[in-house]
């Protein structure tokens, strides 16, 4: 088995990780845009969390106003370029395209979107500028999609914005956590650069906000604070042998892969534990890194998987094998992982239970746990009066995204528990408007 050879160079890595949604050329965009029906109250627009006026931007592409199309997109979604390629479009805009009702291929909205925004970025088209200063300052914690989107919106409204980012690059999981075949690092960073040049927000890299003193400092120096802190590291499973070498969280695995590309060594046999989209990504990536045998093991059946169908199908197409109804018991090996012992599961009276005596072993040298991420509960508890729900998500007002501490607003994974880039982008923007309502408009 193994459809891919381990990449030994950047070129080989790029070959294995060819983009799933490559940039359209002008002719593709011309014909694809010609097909849009310009539906009334278009379902695609309503299916987009940021409500991009899809029929309008497609018409603009077709009539040769491609930069105008990019403007339409960015006006609704500051991360419109990344979203064009990383969004699960078959579940959102493209999934609602009415053509599908007559089995006509749906419009490739994501790629058209990316076509327009890529052109604007390549030409460095100046579409936006900072609003006249209103003398207010906002601090943003976390330069992920929510934080960046919040920053862009605030700048257009005339706020001074400082983003504090723990890592050395902007855009959070878009650059650190998305499968490399969905978007390249360069493309992610180019978009932020493009926006930053026009809007002029400041990002303080390698500046983690972790202490009460830091927070108090921000509270004293800024009119409002946005929490775009995302969620944390992969949760511990509490398994025997979990501390062995060769056991890694999916989020950490993907981050390493995105930063080091072909320099990451993936062994021949890999086990990925989990059934969500991150598990799928980690499994597909392992296969594309040349692993001969990648086993994706999920404790329930196929129907209960959290992953989108198209993601699962993609993993299978890369050569990943799936094992359902099995849960890990122990990670074996002497210091280094050599395999995982699983036990079969079944649902009895609606509850998942193990089938006694059904243990089996899958040999491997790398175990990737994609079993959910811990929340930022410890950090968030430093903020006075900040209410979290039962799942440790920050409670916010549904329209203003203001938290229970009126100085703080929040959006993105820390609020929604882990969703798409487009959700973060939307929530960040709405939070900015919420702040504006509180600080200036009222």
């Amino acid at each position, binding site marked *: 088995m193994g459809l891919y050879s381990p990449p030994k160079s950047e070129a080989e890595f790029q070959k294995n990780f060819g983009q799933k949604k490559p940039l359209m050329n002008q002719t593709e965009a011309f014909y694809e845009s010609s097909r849009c*029906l310009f539906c*009334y109250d278009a379902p695609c627009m309503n299916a987009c969390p940021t409500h991009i006026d899809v029929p309008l931007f497609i018409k603009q592409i*077709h009539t040769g106003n491609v930069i105008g199309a990019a403007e339409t997109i960015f006006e609704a979604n500051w991360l419109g370029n990344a979203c064009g390629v990383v969004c699960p479009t078959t579940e959102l805009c493209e999934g609602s395209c*009415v053509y599908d009702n*007559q089995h006509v291929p749906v419009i490739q909205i994501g790629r058209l979107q990316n076509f327009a925004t890529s052109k604007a970025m390549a030409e460095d088209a100046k579409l936006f500028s900072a609003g006249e200063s209103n003398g207010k300052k906002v601090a943003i914690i976390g330069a992920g999609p929510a934080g960046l989107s919040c920053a862009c919106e605030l700048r257009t409204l005339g706020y001074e914005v400082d983003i504090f980012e723990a890592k050395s690059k902007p855009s959070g999981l878009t650059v650190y956590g998305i499968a490399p075949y969905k978007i390249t690092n360069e493309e992610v960073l180019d978009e932020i650069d493009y926006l930053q040049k026009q809007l002029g927000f400041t990002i303080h890299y390698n500046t983690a906000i972790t202490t009460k003193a830091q927070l108090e400092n921000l509270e004293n120096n800024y009119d409002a604070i946005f929490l775009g802190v995302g969620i944390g590291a992969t949760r511990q499973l509490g398994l025997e042998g979990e501390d062995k070498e060769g056991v890694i969280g999916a989020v950490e695995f993907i981050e390493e892969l995105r930063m080091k590309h072909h320099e990451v060594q993936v062994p021949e046999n890999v086990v990925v534990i989990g059934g969500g989209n991150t598990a799928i990504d980690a499994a597909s990536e392992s296969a594309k890194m040349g692993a001969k045998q990648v086993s994706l093991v999920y404790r329930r059946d196929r129907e209960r998987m959290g992953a989108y169908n198209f993601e699962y199908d993609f993993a299978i197409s890369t050569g990943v094998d799936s094992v359902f109804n099995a849960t890990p018991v122990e990670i074996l090996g002497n210091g280094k992982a050599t395999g995982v012992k699983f036990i079969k599961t079944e649902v009895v009276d609606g509850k998942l239970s193990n089938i006694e005596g059904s243990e089996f072993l899958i040999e491997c040298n790398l175990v990737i746990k994609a079993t959910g991420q811990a929340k930022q509960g410890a950090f968030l508890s430093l903020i006075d009066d900040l209410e979290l729900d039962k799942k440790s998500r920050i409670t916010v007002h549904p329209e203003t995204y203001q938290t229970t501490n009126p100085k703080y607003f929040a959006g993105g994974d820390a609020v929604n528990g882990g969703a798409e880039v487009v959700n973060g982008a939307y929530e960040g923007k709405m939070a900015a408007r919420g702040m504006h309502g509180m600080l200036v408009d009222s």
Partner: protein
Amino acid sequence: MPDLSINFAGIKSPNPFWLASAPPTNSGYQVMKAFEAGWGGAVWKTLGVPVINVSSRYGSVNYRGTRMAGFNNIELITDRTLSDNLKEIEEVKKYFPDHAVIASLMVESKKEWEQIIKDAENAGADGLELNFGCPHGMCERGMGSAVGQEPEVLKTIVTWAKEFATVPVITKLTPNISHIIDPGLAAVEGGTDALSLINTIKSIVGIDLDSYAPYPVVDGKGTNGGYCGPAVKPIALEMVKELAKHVQIKDTPISGIGGIESWRDVVEFILLGAGSVQVCTAVMHYGFDIVREMEKGLTRFMLDKGYETIEDFRGKALPNVTEWKHLNLKYKVIAEIDESKCIGCDLCYIACDDGAHQAIAIPGNGKGRIPEIIEENCVGCNLCSLVCPVEECITMVRKDDGSASKTWDERTIAGTIPMTFDDERAGGNGHFVPSVADALKHKK
């Protein structure tokens, strides 16, 4: 098998598919290729005193993903010498004695007409076509459409041609006039054996937004061209019908030209009276092989309808083309939506609400997107069925009481038509019209 052959004003051809006088008939090479491909006849690119052409000669109207929905050109008549053209006509006729080769001609003086008609006939031309149509370039020198727009001049030249010609003479008309009967009748009075139309329509297909010059741009400038291609077919059909119905013209054979690309187009022209058709743009777009679809489609149509010859159905639609005042005002159709086919684009809704009679409702508020016809508001205008992107989803169903026809003419005689500005008998009286303020509820 149906017989596709025709005898058009004495010109015999194995089928009614002719190439129009245009770039595809510029040389013997092209005409030979065309005959090989299946064309029955060719009207040679207009002969005369050779011209000098510009570079950058064609422009097009592209509609959404479709290239050349409309097409225009500023090319003139042949730029090759008469002797070269004649030599090639002679050669083609040797290879294809049973195909129709018609020489299109355009010269100025009577003497030139005499000479060129003799030359063309000597080369073996089966017929002559007098080019009174070109709306660009040649007309500036008193030829082409300049002749077609002056019935008296046209008639005089037709008379000359008939004086000199021994083969049939076809007069090609320009559509760049307000009343096609005038030149048509002039040609008939001059003794023409047949008519052909339409030549191209005077046009500007677009403006270059950087150089501010019309297409096709020639070194920063442009001029009006002649418009043709699929977009002009409706204008051509109307003019063919006008001539074919006219009492003094209807017995003169008509060669139909204008936007013909498929067998359907061919059949439509024949149904309105055309005895042959001429094609240019479709060949310039797809090459000579496009004729195969026409031939197969026409044959299938004739088989399906039980026609053995073209004459069996020529002009069959003419009795049904009447004046508006003779249309039945009691006839009523209502749109019907096939919900099982509807994809929920709601174009019918917005087209009706914004562009017609507010006769379609949508559920809204996330309750689905299948529209519903409000029958009492529907005037049966067809718009929804035309914008619907799904095949056979919206159909127009007859819903009147089937009682005897009542036309405007009949109502006029009966004295039941509206006579004053506020006449109670206004057709829209009693018909639903939303209140003005209702428009604001749509405001986003």
